[in-house]
């Protein structure tokens, strides 16, 4: 059975083999993705083309390895593709290319795109009277993009109660702590002011996340998930450096041991 711990180990293994960056950004996402894919969403390998499925967009595309692991554990992405992540001749790039595997609802990497795409999907579901929900995961750095707020404003104007914005608020962006860069400490209040039904949750508490995701409202919903960048790995937790950490053999072993002991 898939567990958050297993997903973290997958992330570390992909990072170790590829020497690619953004591991801290993936590690903060794990419980969010676990609660969505394994506890909440109407989504499975059999449903990747079902128009009634719930759609999940990972707009913070640099957290891709967490999503690749989840889709692999769901039997959608092959082991072979996971093995060759971010390597010459592989299929899965660091930032998401939706043509590289089934189950990827949108390409992502350039920040601030997923919310608008998700709003378009939510509008389409309304037009066709489909029941599927749209979940878009953004980062707390990402929401500095004005385009996210263009999408948020439209979602509330159009009363898209089938649209959920999830913020992986790990507090750190590429160069610094996010609240130091742009102060967003009152994010859920801002989203409420924009017409969302917004709440704050512990982003590493699977039960709390699941309850928040399952809660419906007559408004679009937003969940500000407070997370720790690099969660589970002692030398990465809550560091700006974890955006760039490259796992040597030694660090990989230490990281695996940290996660095992979580």
């Amino acid at each position: 059975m898939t567990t958050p711990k297993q997903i973290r180990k997958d992330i570390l293994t992909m990072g170790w083999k590829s020497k690619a960056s953004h591991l801290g950004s993936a590690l903060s996402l794990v419980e969010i993705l676990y609660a969505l894919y394994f506890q909440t969403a109407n989504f499975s390998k059999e449903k990747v083309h079902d128009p009634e499925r719930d759609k999940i967009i990972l707009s913070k595309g640099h957290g891709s390895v967490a999503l690749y692991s989840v889709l692999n554990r769901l039997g959608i992405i092959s082991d072979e593709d996971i093995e060759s992540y971010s390597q010459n001749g592989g299929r899965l790039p660091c930032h998401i290319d939706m043509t590289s595997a089934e189950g990827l609802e949108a390409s992502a990497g350039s920040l601030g795109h997923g919310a608008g795409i998700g709003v378009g999907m939510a509008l389409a579901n309304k037009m066709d009277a489909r029941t599927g929900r749209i979940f878009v995961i953004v980062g707390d750095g990402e929401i500095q993009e004005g385009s996210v707020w263009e999408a948020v404003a439209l979602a509330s104007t159009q009363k898209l109660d089938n649209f959920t914005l999830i913020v992986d608020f790990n507090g750190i962006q590429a160069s610094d702590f996010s609240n130091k860069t742009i102060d967003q400490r009152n994010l859920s209040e801002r989203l409420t002011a924009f017409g969302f039904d917004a709440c704050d949750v512990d982003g590493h508490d699977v039960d709390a996340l699941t309850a928040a995701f399952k809660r419906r409202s007559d408004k679009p919903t937003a969940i500000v998930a407070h997370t720790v960048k690099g969660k589970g790995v002692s030398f990465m937790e809550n560091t700006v450096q974890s955006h760039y950490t490259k796992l040597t053999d030694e660090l990989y072993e230490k990281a695996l041991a940290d996660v095992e002991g979580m």
Partner: protein
Amino acid sequence: MRMVFAETLTKLAREDKDICIVTPDMGYSILDVFEKEFPERFFNVGIAEQNAVSVAAGLALSGKKPYVYSIIPFVTMRCFEQIRVDVAYMNTNVKLVGVGAGFEYGSAGYTHQGVEDLSVMRCLPNMIVCAAGDNREIEEITKQSVQINKPMYIRIGRHNRGIFNHCEEIKIGKASVLQQGEDIALIATSNMLPGAFDYAEKLKKQGRKPYVISMHTVKPIDKELILDLVDKGVEINTFEEHTIVGGLGTAVAEVIAESGKGIKFKRFGIPDVFSHYVGNQYYIKDQFGLNFDK
């Protein structure tokens, strides 16, 4: 021409429930015909061009056929990166419709003029680029666009000088030869099509025999036609109300250059400078030597 687009799309929408319009607050009095009949498929998303394109991509990923409508700079450049990723890279069935070709919004000032759109749209893989020269072309391009499940940019004008393309069949990707000639071919796109006819009259007085060709599809360019002219040793002139950097003239030049055969070639268009001229379309075109009717 923009009314023909709106009316044609409205007619098509009666047969195809997936057609919808997304606009960042443009099209007042033009798109009304669509909005009145299909309010549930008309989305004014506010003055937010980036979001307009992303929302359209989301609609397209859900099987809809969205047309994003605005003035050229706002539907091609303000949101270029969204077009690059959400439309071209993701290969979504989004149609971008830019109104106000060249200096048609001349008096509005440079911010509203559409003079680099063909270049920036042409450089994107997957993107089909059409530029209608008259009302028949826009009607045909609009009709055919519904059947093409790919990203597409459609450049349309505001005004209309009449019908110039009388070809029985107007087909996306295939240039229309509107006047047969011998020694020189005038290849025009979009709102320079009338100008090419004017220029042809001047040449005829000098004893030359010009072809007049409408290149209403700038990408994929009709290589076959260009190479045929090159083989015949015909001089080629291109006409566009657009910068000469990267648009029709460049596209034709690329084909000629790689043919390995030299012919005489000239681009008529806007040189690589900003217009700071104040005045209407005709006046500004005059400053760049792009009126041939005198």
